[in-house]
């Protein structure tokens, strides 16, 4: 049942990415191209998403259990630290180079584009390098 619910959420999320244009690197890079021909669309996507998620989370937060009777796993609010900032910077470089982040990249797999498949393969490698390497040194951060 949880798998079905999650599948549905993934579909809605993916459709949102497609409809908003976020699966197209050109739309994302158009926003990031602040000093060029600027396309504010991504900002509208964020604002719209937050306008639903912020009040939505407040309402859901009043519950003690999820609908499927599980715990509500709100991530613990950790402090800003150097590792997180370095990670954000590295992510920003990759995102600025290609204009894809994990969600759109995964949705785009359905297009069977070789470049997308390559990007996702590299992304998975990046995830594994972090999770295996830092696991060995005993410091996996899972937010």
């Amino acid at each position: 049942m949880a798998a079905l619910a999650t599948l549905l959420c993934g579909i809605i999320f993916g459709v949102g990415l497609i409809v908003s244009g976020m699966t197209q690197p050109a739309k994302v890079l158009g926003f990031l191209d602040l000093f060029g021909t600027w396309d504010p669309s991504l900002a509208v996507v964020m604002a719209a998403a937050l306008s639903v998620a912020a009040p939505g989370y407040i309402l859901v937060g009043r519950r003690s259990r999820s609908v499927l009777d599980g715990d509500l796993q709100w991530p613990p609010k950790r402090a800003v630290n150097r590792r997180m900032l370095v990670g954000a910077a590295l992510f920003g470089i990759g995102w600025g180079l290609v204009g894809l982040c994990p969600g759109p990249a995964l949705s785009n797999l359905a297009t069977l584009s070789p470049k997308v498949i390559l990007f996702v393969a590299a992304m998975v490698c990046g995830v594994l390098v972090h999770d295996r390497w830092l696991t060995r040194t005993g410091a996996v951060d899972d937010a």
Partner: protein
Amino acid sequence: MASFTPVSAAIGGVLIGGSAVLLMLLTGRIAGVSGILAGAIRPGGGAGAWRLAFVVGLILAWPLVALTGREVAVPQLPGSWIVIVVGGLLVGFGARLAGGCTSGHAVCGIARVSARSLAATAVFMTVAIAVVAVTHHLLGA
């Protein structure tokens, strides 16, 4: 160059935010794709089945959209194969190190008014903008 599409951006954004709320309401989880992906590929994951379901859902989106008659837009990725590999590695590794990506931090984290997510978003936005400024204008790419 892509043009401003506020209406579809808003509709898509509502779906994204809505799916995040729905995921928390139904299953009690945060819709952070990098974390979900990491969990989905982690071995020995009986508890990871839901994560795989989310990823499958993401991949099913295009086929479902295509069923409505809308043409599938094959994404145009910039750069050489090397750039794509380097970009992918950095996105995957960086997101894990940061504890989230655009969905986990910029949407879910900011929705919870998390200072950490605000900081993460500010950093990756600024860096990405700088990278695009360099590649598009300084290097003439």
